[in-house]
């Protein structure tokens, strides 16, 4: 994975720190062209991986990328699925069975639900596979070497103890898309031990990691210990979150931690993108220098 990954929260009005900023961002990125322009700023800053939700609007961006192969040579997308709000809203309206009927492609359900026929284990997992395929459709022809499970789902399964489902996601993504599975989580230490227990070695995991300890369940110290063990390929996200520290201090903290392979951030303006990217590179250099001494 590249050292710096570009995220998409800012495009869809997801701002954990402020509802008001969310709205402002939703307005700013109303058109696909404004998203594409900002992706261009990221590319200029040397960032070639876009990690994004399988939001409906991403499909327009994918069309553009496919239509302009010269502009996107070597460009990768890391899809993060599912876009949970879509399903949560559907469950509110249609119920669980109704939602599955709506979103699982084909007439898979015609047969299964008739007369409440009993289900067999394989059906649930193949249902999941069909849902993955549906979410992956928009990325056809684009390089997607890592495919992520969103934290709501990863952590839901984690709490429910559904290890086998996590493993099935991992296996299917490898088999069908020749990609590596990634897991977004707010519970890094817990997740790693569970993934290990089902035989997933050195997994790609994306988690909140910041000097304020924000969204680091179990505490910052536990995260630091976990990182030291080096048993995962970790992507740090929400690195600027929390506390009153400056961007510089926040990035310095993350760059100095061991075993963080990549840093994910999102920003709207060219200035912020450049600043964050160059801070990461700057602190990486100082760390390298001090390590080689």
């Amino acid at each position, binding site marked *: 994975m590249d050292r710096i990954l570009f995220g998409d929260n800012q495009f869809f009005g997801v701002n954990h720190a402020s*509802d008001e900023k969310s709205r402002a961002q939703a307005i700013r990125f109303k058109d696909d062209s404004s998203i594409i322009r900002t992706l261009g700023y990221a590319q200029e800053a040397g960032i070639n991986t876009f990690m994004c939700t399988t939001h409906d609007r991403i499909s327009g961006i994918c069309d553009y990328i496919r239509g302009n192969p010269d502009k996107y040579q070597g460009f990768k997308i890391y899809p993060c699925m599912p876009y949970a709000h879509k399903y949560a809203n559907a469950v509110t309206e249609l119920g669980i069975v109704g939602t599955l009927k709506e979103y699982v492609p084909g007439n898979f359900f015609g047969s299964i639900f008739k007369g409440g026929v009993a289900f067999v284990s394989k059906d649930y997992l193949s249902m999941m596979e069909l849902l993955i395929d549906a979410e992956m459709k928009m990325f056809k022809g684009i390089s997607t070497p890592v495919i992520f499970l969103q934290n709501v789902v990863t952590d839901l399964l984690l709490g429910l103890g559904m290890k086998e489902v996590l493993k099935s996601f991992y296996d299917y993504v490898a088999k069908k898309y020749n990609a590596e599975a990634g897991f977004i989580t707010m519970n890094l230490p817990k997740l790693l031990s569970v993934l290990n227990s089902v035989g997933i070695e050195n997994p790609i995991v994306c988690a909140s990691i910041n000097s304020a300890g924000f969204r680091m369940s179990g*505490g910052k110290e536990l995260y630091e210990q976990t990182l030291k063990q080096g048993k995962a390929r970790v992507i740090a996200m929400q690195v600027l979150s929390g506390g009153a520290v400056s961007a510089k201090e926040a990035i310095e903290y993350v760059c100095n931690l061991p075993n963080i392979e990549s840093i994910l951030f999102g920003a709207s303006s060219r200035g912020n993108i450049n600043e964050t990217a160059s801070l990461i590179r700057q602190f990486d250099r100082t760390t390298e220098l001090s390590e080689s001494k």
Partner: protein
Amino acid sequence: MAFGFNNVKIEEATTMIKVGLIGAGKMGISHLSILGAHPDVEIVGVSDTSKLVLDVLKKYSGFKVFSDYSKMLDEVKPEAVVVAVPTKFHTIINKTLLSKGIHVFSEKPLALKAEEGEELVRLAKEKGLVTQVGYHNKFIGTFMEAKRLINGGHIGDIFHFTGESYGPVVVKNKQNNWRADPEEGGGCLMDYAAHVIDLINYVIGPIERVSGAKLESYYSRNVEDGVYSLLELASGVGGVLSVNWSDETYRKMSTSVTALGSKGKIICDATEIKVYFKSSDVPGGYTKGWTIKHINDFAVPVDFYLRGEEYSAQIDYFIKSIQKVVPNDINTFETAWQTDRVISLIKNCAKK
């Protein structure tokens, strides 16, 4: 390491609590996951009427599942139960649980009708049981801070308040589930406004009178999509309630309260609190004029995060109440019953 509410470090609690779940729908599944990750909880059974849900939970989580909750209570004898069934079933199930001496965490609103709450509150008191209702906003740091500032008199005498909530639940003419049926607890008043009313009761003061109310339908045929009301506190202070679940400009439910007082003003939602002070007589961390603080400054650290610290924190508070580590005085059946009574005042006022 265990943290109590408000981040007070407490003695390591060791008693395991046997917990059951009734209703593994949207809300119930989230509670179940949080319970599953709680170090002091043993999940002894899950009950739901959906075969599909039970089948999946049995197969992949290994829980003992029951299509009939009475059977679950008899067979696995939970000490505590989390209830997340559609609202019309709350009272009957909560009553059964309390009668059997079981601690209850019930989803909101407490009951379909305000009258039903009284007996539940009495029963819980008689039996000395822990009760809690899922009004999770009280576990959000920004609202906790707003309460602290208001109760501490920092913004002076309150002149006026506003409670609002908006979100995209019903944005087209098509809904056929329990949420669209007034007999089952559907409608914006019970589903959305309940949260705001409960929050006003807690953060600003108990609502005692409703002097005007309008329930409006935009898309729904049988229930209201908007709730607008004039409220009055016991102290005589007045405020406005404005709630609408048919507003798709919001990505998800968004709740806020504002209060204007003689010494300043507070505007607070789940992500930030903005406070204005007229003079330099301010509490620590604030200055004259505007101060804006973010949830990051107040987030209650949790050991397991699923969808907002508040969801984990409220379950943790319930478990710790049973363990007698915390006092069980947030979101009891009693305060939820107060909220039910305001809901009923609004309904009656709107009918006039």
